[in-house]
């Protein structure tokens, strides 16, 4: 299953690294749900650009959530403990890092890779899905596809580029 542009995903709650349950739905505000993980070089390469987008757009009313859906049994680097250690080691993150233990969120959203970015409007409808920008190796691109989508939504418009191909490591599904 995969969300189409305009679809509303189900309202799911997942625990963050502090154990707080967080709804994936925004409370009447645009939301960015980034499926990501600890071990994938693509996710790591884009990570700082995502964090900078949080810093730039959260004050403008956008809610950000990072979700790790990977099978932690086969990939221990993506366990909740490892997620906690990473966030603590970074001195905290500006967005909650959620554990999708059952992989339900990843299935409902149709996440394919880490990273895979989903932007929902204030009504919870999908308005952008794909990569943060065109090249994980070029920090100067600054997550421009994500930013374009958010700029459009904040201006009351639809993103001109609603979908791009997500690029990264495949989501590690449980067997």
């Amino acid at each position, binding site marked *: 299953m995969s969300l189409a542009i305009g679809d509303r995903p189900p309202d799911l709650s997942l625990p963050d690294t502090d154990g707080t349950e967080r709804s994936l739905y925004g409370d009447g505000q645009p939301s960015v749900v980034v499926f990501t993980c600890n*071990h*994938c*070089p*693509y996710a*790591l*390469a884009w990570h700082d650009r995502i964090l900078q987008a949080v810093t730039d757009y959260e004050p403008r009313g956008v809610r950000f959530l990072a979700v790790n859906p990977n099978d932690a049994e*086969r*990939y*221990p*680097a993506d366990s909740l403990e490892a997620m906690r250690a990473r966030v603590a080691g970074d001195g905290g993150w500006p967005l909650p890092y959620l554990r999708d233990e059952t992989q339900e969120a990843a299935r409902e959203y149709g996440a394919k890779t880490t990273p895979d970015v989903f932007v929902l409007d204030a009504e919870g409808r999908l308005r952008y899905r794909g990569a943060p920008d065109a090249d*994980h*190796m070029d*920090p100067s691109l600054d997550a421009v596809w994500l930013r374009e989508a958010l700029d459009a939504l904040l201006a009351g418009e639809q993103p001109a580029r609603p979908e791009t191909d997500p*690029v*990264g*490591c*495949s989501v*590690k599904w449980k067997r």
Partner: protein
Amino acid sequence: MRIELLWSEGCPSHPRALADLREALSEEGIGEEVLLRQIASDEEAERERFPGSPTIRIDGKDVFPAAPGEPLGLTCRCYRLRDGRVSPVPDPDDLRETLRRAKENA
């Protein structure tokens, strides 16, 4: 020299790694073909001591040895570029340097 590139599905980096490897081989004047080997299961990854995709081996030895304790499995491998950035493929300069040394020692 036997030059292998081991890769697994679910990680899109091996075409880029192969292109970089072929370019480095050409620049270093090494005529050997690259043998592509897909690692298809966790069991095979364990058996082959495969730390992730892509892994480049010369005469059976990983040219960028994994750190002790690094897990084995079907995953994307993290490399560090010379400027410190994380990358799914080795730094091309590191690759050239490694091939040059291998050629000298062959």
